[in-house]
């Protein structure tokens, strides 16, 4: 991999990589002419609504659906027993995470409701309104059981066991240890300690979870329009659990109204919808309403971490010791599992810093609240908050400036490749350079001056910092090795059409972050064609190469590299045909701005459209044995490192009202190193959006429960998401350390903002 080229160094037309080019998709979205799942209407389409458990924990004694069936417009009512015989249950564990356990889960629970909001009965009607009318007519007799609400006592001997077959409420535990923590704390100059609580919150995609499944009994094929981040994964799941061949399941996702990790999981109510469509052999739609979203979308980040840090007299970090406890709801979520968040915490604590001794333990327990799973920047905000909290306490204990303390302890830019105390392998990071860039962006002495002046006048201004690392581009070591059928590889097919235009189909998906925009830039540059002649297809298992979809920031890093290689291969194939037509050697020709040119002089020899015309309509004029493969597919998977890591640092400037506790945000700065930047405009907006989601988690958003496990939020008026008026302007700067694993060098940018903002 020594012959790395900087794609932007190519000084010629069609150099699009690295340019702020607006997204092609936005034009339809600003006119309200996108197509989300709820916008699709099919003939004979029926609608599903679910009776959901009002109890956190209850035995289901009897269900009577007779009154509901009498309501005009109601088509069918399905109970757990009706669906169970048609669906293979699932158990969400990963075998490489030793000792992990979870209970079998069905689309609807057979005997016991285990969280408030769990779908119990499905009503199918001619309209959603009629289906909802019928919900109140379904009679369910419950025996309420004691709810396991407090994760602190989930493992106590007198706490009920949610799934008796599991023996206890423990899903997973792991200690990650290196060096000698006990001795390090004995020898420490100072020790700081704190307990951190991260409130349970959720993604609140503005488009709720949406699915429209249709089954054709004659062809035996299931077509699912789905608001998802991972269409191929969903295809595999529906095929396996509805006992079908993968080829008989097609998953289509057109526009997705926000995902943030919420839409990368298998939800039991959505499996129920697919099963119902198959049983009824007609299109069946389910769109979650907002109350259903709050009680049945995955939650995340319900952690309590007790942590301490040892430092020496010179201000060097000696050791971190942390205990993480997290409650994940009654089931581990399929197929990624709910132990990954805690596992990430113990992999990422202390991530930016150079220190020798480390011990972190995560304990993952079951409880009767909504299931938790991976949400944007999985585990990162927790690890970063704890790490930076300890760093600030240590700096204070030593009487050091927080920036000076960080500079002393951050990993040096010239120290890579290296392995962190938590065992993470870093190819190349830029903590020192990023901190330097941040200092250029903010007037640090000036802000400290304002802070002192404010304090003298009774105003409490604060400036907080958070250095962070972020895991991207996961290899099969994330899920595949544990038995989950989630592709770490992705592919891209690039095709030249007769008019010389180009179509690129990719396995990575678009949820608004700009996947299609960057794939278009990359393919246009790789091919040497004008960008507006390239069309990108995503989100259809029938027409795109098999891939993992978009999560963990893999769109640019994995999908982008596959697109680059497919574009280069298609260009090479086109030049072979052109060489035969022009009786020249292929390596004397090039493709520039959509024209075949003489490489040495730039002289235009013919447009790509002419080559297309000849190949598709006058193939008789070409040498008979000449390959004319104007469509090429390439795949990419990372091979050298289990994950790529990005890094950066954030600063937050705010005003705390010490009487009310209200926080007014005055300014926010981010420096991010996401490797090669393909489109600065899109990267900056990913960072800003991520920051605001992080701030939301830190200051506003909280899924509150009563001690009995009753969810206390019912609408967006109860669960606060950040609004425009309370958010500050967010200033974004960059450092670029490309990964050498790929020609493109991109690492991913979607989650860094969220990873660091709460801590800052």
């Amino acid at each position: 991999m020594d012959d790395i080229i900087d794609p932007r160094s190519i000084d010629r037309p069609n150099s699009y990589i690295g340019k702020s080019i607006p997204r092609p998709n936005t034009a339809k979205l600003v006119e309200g002419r996108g197509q989300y799942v709820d916008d699709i209407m099919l003939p004979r389409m029926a609608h599903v609504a679910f009776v959901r458990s009002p109890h956190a924990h209850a035995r289901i004694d009897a269900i009577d659906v007779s009154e509901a069936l009498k309501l005009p417009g109601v088509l069918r009512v399905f109970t757990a027993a009706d669906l169970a015989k048609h669906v293979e249950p699932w158990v969400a564990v990963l075998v490489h995470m030793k000792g992990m356990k979870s209970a079998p889960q069905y689309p609807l629970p057979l005997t016991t409701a285990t969280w408030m909001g769990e779908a119990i009965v499905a009503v199918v009607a001619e309209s959603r309104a009629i289906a909802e009318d019928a919900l109140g007519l379904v009679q369910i007799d419950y025996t309420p059981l004691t709810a396991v609400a407090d994760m602190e006592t989930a493992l106590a001997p007198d706490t009920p066991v949610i799934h008796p077959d599991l023996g206890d409420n423990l899903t997973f535990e792991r200690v990650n240890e290196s060096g000698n923590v006990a001795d390090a704390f004995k020898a420490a100059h100072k020790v700081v300690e704190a307990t951190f609580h991260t409130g349970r919150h959720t993604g609140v995609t503005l488009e709720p979870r949406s699915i429209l499944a249709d089954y054709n009994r004659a062809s035996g094929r299931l077509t699912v329009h789905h608001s998802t981040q991972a269409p191929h994964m969903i295809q595999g799941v529906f095929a396996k659990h509805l006992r079908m061949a993968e080829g008989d399941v097609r998953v289509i996702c057109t526009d997705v109204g926000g995902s943030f990790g919420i839409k990368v999981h298998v939800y039991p109510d959505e499996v129920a919808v697919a099963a119902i469509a198959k049983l009824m052999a007609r299109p069946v739609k389910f769109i979650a309403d907002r109350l259903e979203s709050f009680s049945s979308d995955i939650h995340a980040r319900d952690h309590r971490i007790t942590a301490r840090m040892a430092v020496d007299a010179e201000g060097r970090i000696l050791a971190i010791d942390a205990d993480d406890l997290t409650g994940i709801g009654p089931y581990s979520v399929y197929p990624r599992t709910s132990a990954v968040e805690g596992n990430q915490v113990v992999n990422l604590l202390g991530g930016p810093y150079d220190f020798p001794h480390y011990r972190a333990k995560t304990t993952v327990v079951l409880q009767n609240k909504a299931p938790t799973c991976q949400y944007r920047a999985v585990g990162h905000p927790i690890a970063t908050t704890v790490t930076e909290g300890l760093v600030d306490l240590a700096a204070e204990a030593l009487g050091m400036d927080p920036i000076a303390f960080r500079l002393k302890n951050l990993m040096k830019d010239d120290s890579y490749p290296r392995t962190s105390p938590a065992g993470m392998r870093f190819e190349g990071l830029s903590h020192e350079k990023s901190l330097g860039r941040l200092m250029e962006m903010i007037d640090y002495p000036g802000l400290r001056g304002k802070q002192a002046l404010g304090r003298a006048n009774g105003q409490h201004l604060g400036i907080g910092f958070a250095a962070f690392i972020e895991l991207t581009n996961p290899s099969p070591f994330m899920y595949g090795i544990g038995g989950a059928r989630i592709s770490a590889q992705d592919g891209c097919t690039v095709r030249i059409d007769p008019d010389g235009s180009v179509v690129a189909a990719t396995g990575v998906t678009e949820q608004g972050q700009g996947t299609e925009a960057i794939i278009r830039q990359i393919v246009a540059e790789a091919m040497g064609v004008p960008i507006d002649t390239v069309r990108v297809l995503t989100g259809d298992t029938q027409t795109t190469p098999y891939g993992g979809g978009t999560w963990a920031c893999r769109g640019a890093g994995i999908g982008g590299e596959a697109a680059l290689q497919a574009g280069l291969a298609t260009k090479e194939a086109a030049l072979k045909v052109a060489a035969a037509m022009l009786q020249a050697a292929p390596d004397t020709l090039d493709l520039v701005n959509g024209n075949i040119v003489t490489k040495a002089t730039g002289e235009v020899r013919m447009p790509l459209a002419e080559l297309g015309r000849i190949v598709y309509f006058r193939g008789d004029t070409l040498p008979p044995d000449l390959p004319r493969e104007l469509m090429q597919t390439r795949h990419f998977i990372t091979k050298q490192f289990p994950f790529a890591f990005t890094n950066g640092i954030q600063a937050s400037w705010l005003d705390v009202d010490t009487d009310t506790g209200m926080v007014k945000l005055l300014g926010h700065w981010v420096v991010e190193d996401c490797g090669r930047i393909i489109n600065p405009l899109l990267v900056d907006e990913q960072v800003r959006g991520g920051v605001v989601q992080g701030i939301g988690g830190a200051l506003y958003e909280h899924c509150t429960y009563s001690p009995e496990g009753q969810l206390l939020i019912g609408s967006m008026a109860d669960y606060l998401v950040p609004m425009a008026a309370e958010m500050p302007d967010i200033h974004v700067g960059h450092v670029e350390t490309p990964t050498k694993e790929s020609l493109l060098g991109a690492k991913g940018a979607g989650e860094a903002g969220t990873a660091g903002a709460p801590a800052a």
Partner: protein
Amino acid sequence: MNQHLDITLTVNGDRVSRRVEARTHLVDFLRGDLGLMGSHVGCEHGVCGACTLRVDGDIVRGCLVLAVQLDGATVETIEGISDSGEIRDLQDAFIARNAAQCGFCTPGMLMTAADLLQHNKQPSRDEIREHISGNYCRCTGYHAIVDAVETVASARAGKV
């Protein structure tokens, strides 16, 4: 609940007559009966603003108005004010500034932004933030939206 009523109203310049269930919300009527899918349903509680549209010149929440209330009214949706060209400059600014990501909030956001610029020709950034605070966006963090609206306000002021 199941009572039906006849209404006649003007939607995006077209006269429309329908028999509707009394409980049908305006946004469900537009989407379900007229196939106008540009107004989105985000919360059905009047909080998120994704269903913002215009009735008789004022912006309203499509999920808080009943269709039967609108006999004789004039309704404009994102499709209508896109076709008329009324907010072309705002739309172009949203595209150029990447002020829309998933796009689900965008039609409502544009309706609200257009309303602001109708009543306040040169709003400050704080005034823009205040006015669009009833429209939730989970993707952008709002900064780019504020930039786009500010740019259009300046451009319109320059033209006058």
